[in-house]
């Protein structure tokens, strides 16, 4: 019943991104049989965990989960420990270690903090992987903005001779929250229409929350000179994709949604503008005569 999954995904595209986890849990409760479909197609905020062996932070998601345990990319161990947890083949693990080191450098260069994790798994013809990046800014005072960025890049790599074909699906979840409050007095001083005694007093308080996710896909061929090429190839693809998506997010978050607010309410007096247009028309008509 693909129809049902479509309805669930359509619903998730409409409900507030700030409540994704709660809503996914509710949907799984209603349709337990579709839990895997849902968890596989709805991206949720990444969870930060600490590797017990190395003390390094890593990111948990559906791709490094086995039962209730998550595998760390640094030690390759499951937490809580699993006797027979799924791990990559030794060859693929070698590539996974290299990829984790490379994307750790990438993370430091672009995020200057945060955490990253890369997980790889074998496929029938090649392998697949996920590159995760997350950074959070928590507020230290009540009115400082807070925010979080979660990147999820899922790719499939198929080798074709000296070439590799990559399919990449990237999702970025971005959340920004700002709280404001202020108090002031006397807004009418000196503007001439006061006429009365005493000033109006104001007090305001508010919150602005911008949150959501955007997803993009790409398919590309890259040359393979040695196994490590997979890391440099996916690295370049993901870097390019994140640059594109960052621009897109900037446009949508700070451009589009802002324009819609101004489409609802105009700061300028619309009536005045209407009258001015009328007047202009009359003038033009007058000159033409």
């Amino acid at each position, binding site marked *: 019943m693909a*129809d049902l999954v479509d309805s669930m995904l*359509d*619903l*998730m595209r*409409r*409900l*507030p*991104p700030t409540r994704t986890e709660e*809503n996914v849990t*509710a*949907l799984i409760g*209603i349709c337990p049989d579709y839990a895997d479909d849902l968890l596989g197609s709805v991206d949720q905020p990444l969870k930060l965990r600490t590797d017990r062996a190395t003390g390094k932070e890593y990111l948990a998601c559906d791709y490094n989960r086995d039962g209730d345990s998550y595998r760390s990319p640094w030690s390759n161990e499951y937490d809580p420990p699993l006797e027979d947890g799924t791990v990559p083949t030794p060859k693929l693990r*070698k590539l996974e270690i*290299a990829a984790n080191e*490379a994307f750790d450098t990438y993370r430091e*260069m*672009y995020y*200057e903090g945060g955490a990253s994790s890369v997980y790889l798994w074998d496929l029938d013809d090649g392998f697949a992987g996920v590159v995760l990046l997350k*950074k959070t*800014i928590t507020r230290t005072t009540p009115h400082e*903005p*807070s*925010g979080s960025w979660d990147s999820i890049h899922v790719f499939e790599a198929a*080798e074709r001779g000296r070439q590799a074909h990559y399919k990449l699906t990237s999702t970025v979840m971005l959340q*920004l929250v*700002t709280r404001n409050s202020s108090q002031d007095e006397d807004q009418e001083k000196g503007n001439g*229409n006061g006429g*009365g005694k*005493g000033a*109006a007093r104001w*007090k*305001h*308080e508010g919150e*602005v*929350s911008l*949150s959501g996710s*955007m997803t*993009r896909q790409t398919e590309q061929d890259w040359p*393979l000179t*040695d*196994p*490590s090429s997979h*890391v*440099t190839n996916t690295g370049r693809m993901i*870097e390019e994709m*994140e*640059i594109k998506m960052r621009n897109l997010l900037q446009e*949508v*978050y*700070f451009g*589009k*949604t*802002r324009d*819609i*607010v101004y*489409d*609802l*309410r105009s700061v300028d*007096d*619309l009536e005045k503008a209407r009258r001015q247009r009328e007047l202009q028309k009359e003038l033009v008509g007058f000159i033409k005569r």
Partner: protein
Amino acid sequence: MNETERIQAACSFLLQSPPGEINDVLNDVRNIISDDDTLHAGVLPALKEYNLTQFMTVDVPGTEHQSIVSEAARLEATEDGKERFVDPRSKTSFLFDHLTLEATASQPFEVDADCEPFRAALEKATISYLTAHFHDGVSFVFTKNGTANQFIMQIVANKYNPSNYWSGRWRSEYHIDLNENTVQGKVLVNVHYYEQGNVQLSATHDVSITLPAAVVTATPSAAAAKILAQIGNEEGRYETSLNDTYTEMGEKTFKSLRRALPLTRQKLDWDRVMGYKLGAELSSSKNMFGSL
């Protein structure tokens, strides 16, 4: 999940609907629950709550303007359990179907003669404010608890553009109390942008204004104009401050989450990132992917 919990979840989904998308959400929920009979009866209270809190606008038979369905417009249920809503401007009341969003059975409504002069003055001032600053707004002024000196003013402006994947809603509500000389208000702005994604703006703004004593003692039309000037001033400043918040989030928070480019102002040199040691180590295990 048992039936009650499923209906509860369905209700929660409906109450989270973005502006103008309640029918889309309802269709999804209907498909997911796939039990129309239980669903209809179960979600009706949620649909009602959604309509009232979102200031649903409706065309009422016999009136030329749109009316608002909200808690302030709701009249006490009659003995037969029917709930009517009042449109004080056209002095009518009507029944509202929370599922089909249709108004029916409109009939004359007798307004409170003591409150009416000030209410009408506030409404007139509100409408001229509305036409000056809102592109597609609807506004009403209701009397509160039948007392002569308390009013509720509501504004709702919607823009739905499903073909370009966005929708937006601005709501304002002000409780005007002439006994206390106060205006307590709330502005709520919601925007949904969903082209290949799901991005939502949710902004709330609470305001309380203490009116100068001179405002309240003036004639109704002068006082109403004054009060609306205060409200308009406040909303204008709020919209400007919202713009500042956008700038701050875009230029500070967004930038400190992820840089546009590394400090070097260049993209990464991935060959160097991989390092010679790593590269060499991997190359020594050549043919690990067969064809190489």
